[in-house]
């Protein structure tokens, strides 16, 4: 791991207040879209709702983590630590979903 001097690079392209406000505007827009699609996608298009929402919230999540929490500019070590925990958590959730919602049952089996 070559994290030793990673911190040195951090300070350079620090986003300023303006960037933060822009991000906030984007976040607001995404939230608005989320709520909108919740009402718009009805009937047959309702099937699209889940994927759309998942993509949108992932986007929001990423924006906050990258910019507000500075992961984009900070040491790689922090990203590694956080993403590792995140991945294990996601793996656990997906495994639970698969096990409890019958995705692992052979069709036609018991």
């Amino acid at each position, binding site marked *: 791991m070559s994290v030793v001097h990673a911190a040195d690079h951090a300070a350079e392209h620090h986003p300023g207040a303006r960037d933060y406000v822009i991000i906030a505007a984007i976040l607001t827009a995404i939230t608005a879209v989320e709520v909108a699609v919740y009402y718009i996608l009805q009937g047959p298009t309702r099937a699209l709702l889940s994927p759309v929402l998942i993509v949108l919230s992932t986007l929001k*999540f990423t924006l906050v983590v990258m910019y507000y929490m500075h992961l984009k500019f900070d040491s790689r070590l922090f990203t590694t630590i956080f993403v590792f925990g995140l991945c294990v958590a996601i793996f656990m*959730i997906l495994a639970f979903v698969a096990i*409890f919602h019958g995705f692992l049952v052979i069709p036609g089996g018991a």
Partner: protein
Amino acid sequence: MRSVAAAPPITPAAPPAHTEEHRTSTGLNNRKVLMWTFLGSDCMFFGALIASYIVYRGKWQQTPTPNELFDIPYTSVSAFALLMSSLAMVLALAAIQRGDLKRLKIWLLTTAGLGLIFIGGQIYEFTGFGAEGMNLSTGTGGTTFFVLTGFHGTHVSLGIIWLLSLYTLARRGALHQGRSLDVEIAGLYWHFVDIVWIIIFTVVYLLPV
């Protein structure tokens, strides 16, 4: 053992002289590494709770189910408040990094205030659900919904206490540019609580059952 009899006095601000950490192997600050590691760990806390919630999702045998009670516009507003508190938080950090202590105080208060709006909204929402017949022990839906969102609410509340403590320190003049890290670390925690809500809002409220 003389010092025992006389209880240790709690002194206000720490002398700044020693707050700068020693040389570290990575050049990073110890407390910041600690906070990030904690957040990695906190992913698992929420992961386990969300997993518990999802396991029962849609298998509720109760009426009303959580989703029958949701008021999406209402919750969107409080979700928005929390989202904007993150903006206030980064602005607070930017302020102290510039040495602008006045803005620091304003933004810290704004952040905490938006957090309080969120918590207030949650309390109001919970009360409404209770009145409509869903509480902590209503089937698995009530149980998992309240415990998941309540656990998050507890995180927010602790964050508010933290922010207000920082605000008090700032008012006493104990926070200064050299201690921006104190604000940065609180900010990391606060943003994390925000991103967890981004997930909860989507998974619990918006996703179709």
